[in-house]
């Protein structure tokens, strides 16, 4: 029962977002601001995570590839495909759910508690669209870009690791990367990235926007938001795999 009321309220928030901006320039400014906050702000953590996840998957695959019949360059293919299909979109988005999600929920929660949202409403501004829509749009713009960057950095991390373990040369690795490349995998990864981006931004925005009470509830709302986003990401991950693969 509570699930349906919450879900209904969530849909209403999304619907309330879709109105004509009071001032297009201000909305644009807010969108750019959010792109910087979400995109540039999460770039370092995304780079670090993807570098290591590429390296780790190379090292572990090398450890498992003991069969002499399998060509060494298969290592590159395995790293490439796991990074593109799973690690870059899903793992990065799970981390971003924490980084971006808590930021969005915290920011909106604080604005709600300190009546800043009310103040905007009283000025005659639709806060659902002025505060929530730019965040969702910014996430939809920047998170797929971050995922692409993560994939590139991850594969590069695998190359460094492969070179360091000495199992295959970096030349063989580069050659292996081009073998059996399926372009659809990239589209699939992007489809996941867009879905997850929407989850990461809209769920925390919903919980932050509807905080009631005091500072304690802001913390609680961001925890709920992050946990819910993570679960939904994993669920969507499975659903997309079942539908698209």
């Amino acid at each position, binding site marked *: 029962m509570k699930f349906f009321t919450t879900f209904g309220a969530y849909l209403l928030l999304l619907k309330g977002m879709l*109105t004509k901006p*009071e*001032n297009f320039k*201000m909305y644009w400014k807010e969108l750019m601001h959010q792109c910087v906050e979400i995109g540039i702000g999460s770039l370092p953590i995304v780079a670090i995570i993807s570098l290591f996840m590429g390296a780790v998957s190379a090292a572990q695959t090398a450890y498992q590839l003991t069969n002499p019949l399998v060509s060494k360059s298969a290592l590159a293919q395995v790293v490439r495909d796991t990074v593109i299909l799973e690690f870059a979109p899903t793992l990065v988005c799970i981390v971003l759910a924490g980084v971006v999600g808590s930021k969005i929920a915290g920011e909106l929660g*604080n*604005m709600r508690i*300190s*009546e*800043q949202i*009310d*103040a905007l*409403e*009283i*000025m*005659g*501004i*639709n806060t659902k669209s002025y505060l929530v829509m730019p965040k969702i749009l910014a996430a939809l713009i920047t998170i797929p870009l971050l995922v692409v960057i993560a994939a590139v950095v991850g594969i590069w991390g695998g190359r460094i690791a492969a070179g360091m373990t000495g199992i295959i040369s970096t030349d063989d690795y580069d050659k292996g990367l081009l073998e059996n490349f399926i372009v659809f995998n990239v589209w699939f990864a992007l489809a996941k990235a867009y879905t997850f981006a929407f989850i990461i931004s809209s769920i925390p925005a919903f919980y932050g926007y509807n905080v009631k009470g005091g500072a304690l509830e802001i913390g609680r709302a961001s925890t709920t938001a992050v946990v819910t986003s993570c679960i939904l990401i994993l669920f969507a991950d499975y659903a997309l795999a079942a539908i698209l693969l």
Partner: protein
Amino acid sequence: MIELKNIYKAFDDKEILNDISAVFESGKTNLIIGTSGSGKTVLQKCMVGLFEVDSGEIIYDGKPFTLMTQEERKILRQQIGMLFQGSALFDSKTVQANVKFPLDMFTNWDHNKKIKRVNEVLDRVNLNDSNKKFPAEISGGMKKRVGIARAIVLNPKYLFCDEPNSGLDPQTSLVIDILIREITLEYNITTIINTHDMNSVMEIGQNILYLYDGKNEWVGNNKQIIFSKNDKLNKFIFASEFLRDAKDMRMLEEKGIIDNDRNMEDVISDPESNLLMKDNEKREHHPDSE
């Protein structure tokens, strides 16, 4: 002009507003007074639609606010300025950006014109050296004043102030009161002020609504309040001995027994200076102004 007709509001079975009716005239400073927790903030928030009333009508210059759609309310709200009890400044923006925000949103003026207007209103609230500071870096009273500046920057038609001078020293308080009275008259604004500051009541109480236990217990102005016989009101408003003395003095002034320059010599040198006593006795029979 804003009219309230039989407003009821409860929070899960707890009645906060119980049949409130009132008329707030334009060009006048309308005060809502009452003890802490009497529902002043809730009433103001109901009037602007931050809370929905359970029943009753709110009418803005003949337009029924309670029946408006969200979109119609949005249009009306562009003519409303509101100061929140907790100031509600945008804490990611500087003082200047806070005050400039409504201009950015609703005008297409150039930057210089906006800045000029911002400085003008900041000047009117006696704040001209804090433009670049963030809300976290200024005092509570300064936040209040920034809040007022932001509320009036677009010359609103309706101005709501929730305790505009709580946390301000008496002198700054007076500056704010006078500013609010001036702009109210100058632009014929319908101004509604929540307060429990006695100085404000006396200074700008052109139309006072006293809330008690969710009801409008007393209505009148700052002259009538001195003569009021309402016990609850007197207990609330003349709570200290000092204020009771002040009230007695004011009554004598109003009756012309002493002059308005606070010149006590006449009374003291007057052989009949026991007038004060007589007046106190007389007060018992003064018809209530209600």
